[in-house]
C-alpha cells in the first residue's frame, strides 16, 4: 500500500485487505471503510496519502479512547492477577512484569496458582530464580485459590509492593474453569479490600476472532482492568484488539515482543496503528 496513488475502488479494496489480514475482523473493517468513505466524500479528499493517514488516525483514536498505563498504588501492596486461555504467554509475561517492577525498586512476590499444568510451578520458579524473586507455591494439584490466599498473606506479611498471581490457562467456554478463576478472585478480594487491583487478560497476537469471545467471557467473569498482547514479534498484527477496545472498553496495557525478560513494552496506540500497515 503505497502513497501517491489515485483514489479508486481498487485502493479501498487493498486497504480493506490489509485490515482483514491484520485480524481486525470483517465487521470492524466494514465499519472503518464506511467511515473512510464518508470522510472522503464530506471533505473532498482526493489523494491516497490522506486516506491512509485518515484511517490510521481513526484506529489510533479508537485505541486512545480506552488507553491507560498500569499504575501501581504507592505505599501499599498491589495484587495483579494474570489470566487467559492456554499457551498465550501468561507465565512469561508475569516474569517480564516482575522484572520491570523489580528494576523500579519494587519488592515483588509471585504466586504459583497454576497447580494443574505439567511443570507450571517449575517454569515460574525458574523465571523467579533468574530474577531473585520469591514464589509462593503448594503441591501440584492443590487448590489454586488456596495458593492465591497463601501468596496474599505472605505478600502482606513481607510488606511486598507487588504480588503477581499466575493462573492456569483455561478456555473461556469451560464453565467449571471459569468458576474456578472467579473463586480465586473472590478469595483475594475477601482477604484484602480493593484487591485484586489489576486483572490482566493475556491475548496472543496470532489469535483470530475468538479473542473477542475470550475478552467478553473473561471480562464478564472477572471485570478485566487490562490486556497484555503477546507475540507481536511474529507476523501477526493483533488487530483483534481494535474491536475489543472499541466494544468492551478494556485498555491494552502492555505488548510482548519476544521470549526474553526485557521483551515487554507499554502499549502505544500510534505505533500499533502504524504497524498494522507495515
Amino acid at each position, binding site marked *: 500500500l503505497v502513497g501517491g496513488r489515485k483514489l479508486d475502488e481498487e485502493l479501498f479494496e487493498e486497504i480493506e*485487505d490489509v485490515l*482483514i*489480514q*491484520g*485480524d481486525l*475482523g*470483517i*465487521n470492524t473493517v466494514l465499519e472503518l471503510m464506511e467511515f473512510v468513505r464518508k470522510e472522503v466524500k464530506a471533505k473532498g479528499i482526493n489523494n491516497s496519502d490522506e486516506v491512509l493517514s485518515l484511517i490510521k488516525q481513526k484506529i489510533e483514536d479508537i485505541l486512545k479512547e480506552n488507553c491507560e498505563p498500569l499504575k501501581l498504588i504507592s505505599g501499599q501492596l498491589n495484587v495483579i492477577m494474570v489470566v487467559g*486461555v*492456554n*499457551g*498465550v*504467554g501468561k507465565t512469561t509475561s508475569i516474569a517480564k512484569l516482575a522484572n520491570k517492577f523489580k528494576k523500579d525498586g519494587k519488592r515483588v512476590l509471585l504466586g504459583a496458582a497454576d497447580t*494443574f*499444568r*505439567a*511443570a507450571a510451578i*517449575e*517454569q515460574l*520458579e*525458574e*523465571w523467579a530464580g533468574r530474577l531473585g524473586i520469591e514464589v509462593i507455591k503448594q503441591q501440584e494439584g492443590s487448590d489454586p485459590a488456596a495458593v492465591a490466599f497463601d501468596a496474599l498473606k505472605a505478600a502482606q506479611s513481607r510488606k511486598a509492593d507487588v504480588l503477581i498471581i499466575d493462573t492456569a490457562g483455561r*478456555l*473461556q*467456554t469451560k464453565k467449571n474453569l471459569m468458576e474456578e478463576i472467579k473463586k480465586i478472585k473472590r478469595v483475594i478480594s475477601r482477604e484484602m479490600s480493593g484487591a485484586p487491583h489489576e486483572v490482566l487478560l493475556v491475548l*496472543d497476537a*496470532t*489469535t*483470530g*476472532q*475468538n*479473542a473477542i*469471545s475470550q475478552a467478553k467471557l473473561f471480562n464478564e467473569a472477572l471485570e478485566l482492568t487490562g490486556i497484555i498482547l503477546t*507475540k507481536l*514479534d*511474529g*507476523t*501477526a498484527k493483533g488487530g*483483534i484488539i481494535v474491536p475489543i477496545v472499541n466494544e468492551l472498553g478494556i485498555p491494552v496495557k502492555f505488548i510482548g515482543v519476544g*521470549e526474553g525478560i526485557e521483551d515487554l513494552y507499554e502499549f502505544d496506540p500510534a505505533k500499533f496503528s502504524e504497524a498494522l500497515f507495515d
Partner: protein
Amino acid sequence: NLSEKIQQVFKKLKGKGKLTEKDIEAALREIRLALLEADVNYKVVKEFISKIKNKAMGHEVLESLTPAQQVIKIVNDELTELMGGSQSKIELADSPPTVIMLVGLQGSGKTTTAGKLALHMKKSGYRPILVAADVYRPAAVKQLHVVGEKSGVPVFDMGTEVSPVEIAQKGIKHAKASGFDIVLIDTAGRLHIDKELMDELVRIKDAVLPNEILLVVDAMTGQDAVNVAEAFYRELNITGVILSKLDGDARGGAALSVKAVTGCPIKYVGVGEKLDALEPFHPERMASRILG
C-alpha cells in the same frame, strides 16, 4: 447461521420469480463473510469463492425449489473435499523406529500433543519414546518428563546445555539400541521468521531424517495461519498438521487456510488438556464448524 442467512437473502428475492446471477452474488457475499468471521485467510476465501461460483451459478441452483439448501450443500461439499481426502494416519517407517518431529509456534500445544501421541501409540501396541529437544523454554524438559510419566512413556533428555540436533541424534540412537519403534521429538516453539531457529529445525531434520514432521497449529489462529504454514512447509516440507485446542469455540478457519496453502493432511485434533484428548480429524465436521 449461514444457512439461515442465505435463506433470508433468497427470500427477499423470491417474489421476483426465478433467481438470477445477481442473487447468487448476494449469497456468495454471505458465504465470504461467514468464512472471514471463521478466521479463514482472506486470500483462501477469495480462491474458495471463485471455485464454487460456477457451481453456485448452475441451473441446479437457479431452478431449484430450495436454492438456499443447494448453495449450502455446494459450500459444505467443497469445504469437506478441500480439507479431507489424503492419508490421515501416521506414516510408519519401513524399518523401525518411526521418527516423528513436532514443530510449530510458541504455545501451540506441541509438548502436550507429543504426550498425547505417545499415549495413543502405546495404546495401539507400539513402544514409543519421547525426546526432549527443547533446551530453551524454562522447565520444558521437566514438562516433557511429567507428560511422559502420565502417559507411561519414557523420556530421553540430555539437559539444556546440549544442542537440540545432538539430542535428537542421540535420542534416535538410544531408541534403536533399546528397541523403541516410535520416536517422538518435541521441539521448542519458534517464529517462522526466526531464520536461526528455522535453520535449527532443518539441521535436526537432516540429522535424523524423520518419517513425519507434524506442524501443531492452534485452532484459534487467525489470518497469520497461512504465513506460518507456508514458511514451515517451505523450510521443512512438513508432512502433516495437528490442530490443537479444538475443544474451545474457535470456528477453526485456520484449518482450511493451512490445508489450502500446504496441501498437507490434518492428521489429528487436540480436544482437551488431558493426554487422552486426541482424536482423528473429520473433514465434514470441520466444514460445518467453520461455516457456523
